[in-house]
């Protein structure tokens, strides 16, 4: 195995890790947004829900920016073609993320009913829409995009195919359960209880969607080819399903933190299952496999990959260390008195 290929594999793994961590961390922020208009019963509960993500939403979104930047640096051809092929879908994603960030930060800055109601809608849209769009995007990537020697032949409407939509529904429920568990862990009293109860109820829907999704994936994508070639890999989707079951188990035992941890690992394992199935493709072609974007035909040069590897080895552990420390500073449920006295949101 030559150095270039080793680096290409390394960056495929890092690419998968960045996306997985992004979905694990931003998943609960998006999930909080989806639940926000229905779960918070009064102004204080609304502010409490926003405050659960207040110190972390921006840092979590940076994982997306890093995933994008890493795609640009390590697989520039994939970055260029994927972003231009999915132009309008990404435009919608951009706007929904813009709305999300601004809504979270601006809602509490003016004490007027109309102002707050406007941003309330923004928080919901900014939670729901990115989840749907990410699901549809990855669903279509798993199926392969229609591309060949003459370029891309897909349309925006074409992305809304049954499998793509099912992936969108899967992401929505994954993040909704995840967000409900996060809110239940970070709050106290009625809000926490209602969030936990909601997580339990929506878990059943999530489990049903997940099974449907696995079957549909087998029928309409090439994701399982790698698994059939080396059956030992089936341990991965098995672990994902077990982790999903563990969420339910922990909830029954009354351990909210345990359920949230299981939900974190479920998201990571679902992503890992997808990425292992994609390898060595980043984006397969549904028309002609010669035009699939792979780690070999779309990567950077050996020099750039080597530089980026050093950068990742230096900075990623540091980032994880201070992020972990800041999460520790803010550990445990929010103090209801702080919500009143600090008035950040």
């Amino acid at each position, binding site marked *: 195995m030559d150095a270039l290929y080793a680096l290409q594999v390394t960056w495929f793994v890092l690419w998968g890790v960045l996306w997985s961590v992004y979905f694990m961390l931003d998943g609960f922020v998006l999930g909080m947004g989806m639940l926000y208009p229905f779960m918070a019963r009064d102004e204080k509960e609304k502010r409490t829900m926003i405050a659960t993500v207040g110190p972390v939403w921006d840092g979590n979104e940076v994982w997306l920016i890093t995933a*994008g930047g890493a795609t*640009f640096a390590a697989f520039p051809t994939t970055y260029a073609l994927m972003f231009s092929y999915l132009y309008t879908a990404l435009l919608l994603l951009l706007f929904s993320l813009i709305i999300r960030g*601004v809504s979270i930060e601006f809602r509490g800055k003016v004490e007027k009913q109309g102002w707050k109601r406007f941003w309330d809608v923004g928080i919901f849209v900014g939670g729901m829409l990115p989840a749907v769009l990410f699901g549809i995007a990855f669903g279509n990537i798993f199926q392969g995009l229609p591309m060949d020697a003459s370029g891309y032949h897909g349309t925006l409407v074409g992305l809304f195919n049954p499998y793509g939509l099912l992936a969108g529904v899967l992401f929505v429920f994954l993040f909704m359960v995840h967000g409900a568990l996060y809110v239940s862990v970070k709050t106290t009293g009625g809000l926490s209880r209602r969030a936990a109860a909601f997580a339990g109820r929506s878990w059943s829907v999530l489990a049903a969607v997940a099974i449907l999704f696995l079957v549909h994936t087998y029928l309409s994508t090439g994701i399982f080819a790698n698994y059939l070639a080396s059956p030992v890999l089936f341990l991965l989707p098995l672990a994902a399903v077990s982790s999903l079951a563990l969420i339910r188990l922990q909830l029954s035992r009354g351990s909210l933190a345990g359920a949230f941890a299981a939900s974190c690992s479920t998201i990571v394992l679902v992503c890992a299952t997808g990425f292992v199935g994609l390898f060595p493709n980043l984006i397969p072609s549904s028309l002609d496999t010669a035009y699939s974007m792979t780690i070999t035909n779309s990567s950077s*040069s050996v020099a*750039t990959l080597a530089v980026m590897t050093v950068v990742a080895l230096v900075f990623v552990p540091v980032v994880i260390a201070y992020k972990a420390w800041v999460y520790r500073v803010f550990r445990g449920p929010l103090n209801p008195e702080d919500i009143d006295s600090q008035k950040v949101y």
Partner: protein
Amino acid sequence: MDVVTLGRWQFAITSMFHFIFVPLTLGLSVLVAWMEWRFVKTGDGTWLRMARFWGRLFVINFVLGVVTGITMEFQFGMNWAEYSKYVGDIFGAPLAIEATSAFFMESVFLGLWMFGWNKVSKKTHAWSITLVAFATNLSALWILLANGWMQNPVGANIVELAGNPLVSRRAEMADVFAVFTNPYGWVKFFHTVLSGYVLAAFFVMGVSAWHLLKPNEVVLFKRSFKAAAVFGLVSGFLVLGTGDFHGSEIAKTQPSKLAALEAVWETHKGVGLSIVVIPDSEAERNSLELITIPKLASLLAYRDPDAEIKGLKDIPKDLRPPVGLVFHSFRLMVGIGMLMLLLSIAAVYLSFRDRIEASPLFLKLMIPAMALPYIAGQLGWIVAEVGRQPWIVYGVLKTADAASKSVDAAQVLFSLVAFTVVYSLLGAVDAYLLVTSAKAGPEARLPAGLDATGKGV
């Protein structure tokens, strides 16, 4: 309009909008960190109320910088796929390094700063805004090294990729050291970051002036004004100095930009600098040149009064940037810069003589003067980016060859309209919030528990 023109309009609008928020973030983070450290050292609660007041404005501004920044990262791929394919091997690295080394630090520690008032010690809290300031400035370094490479593409080889179905030819990293030590990028970094400090200084002076005229919170705003005046004056002189270095860097690497900046049509030696010039691109000459200082342009560009400057007539017409726009933007930027230096000198003088409250006319002047650095910064980017045309990477790749092939004009027109509408609304909301928060002034008293000693600032 074709897809390239529409894409250029979109990039111009989104990047100029993004750059409304960036420079204030760069400078205000430094000022807020300094205020909070003054509090830690002296225990004087006024410093803390200052840090919290200016920090609140910082946060409102910061959010829009963040959300409009993602657009920039996505747009390279969405609209400029041919560019991204061609140069991604070099251009992608600084962007990814920016995210890993700076964006995480900035966002995580700003979260700690906003919510950690009674959770960490005073020093740790001051450190968190210090790290925000450091990371913000670090991110500017990486993005300007990326832009610097587009201006002066060092350390690259053009490589044919035989047998690759997706990309046949591209620029590859030959010398990473050269890319990261590109003098063009570094001089641009210092010039841009320092201009952000000037902008933040004028912002703080302007808002303080409004309160001093009331008068409201006189002690706090006099102190803010004085700190900003010094910060603005020192940074202003350094912007001037780095601007001079920037000019000679352009002279070394971008003859077509230099010729447009100075409106030089004929190649000749000992080029003078005229105070009043009206260039005429059609006639390929200046229709008006008044008050010429002999040999000054040559001296500034090459440190040699007799140096030769290449004229626009010796550059093929299709390789010239739009002369009028570049020339006038440059002149206006420099003029505004000089005006700001004069205002800064007056501000420092009046502050140290303790006559600032007794100068209502000057204070009234400093409120509209808040707009000056914003205008100068936008003009600077017009000079930098329009002056590079028709190249997207100077001498290597033309803008016309850089757009995405799979995106059509209708899609870009749609997104251009959508960005314009959404950004206008965001801009209006942000301006409203900044104005109301600035006018509301600092909190009358610190929240309970914040002035205690030890843990809990």
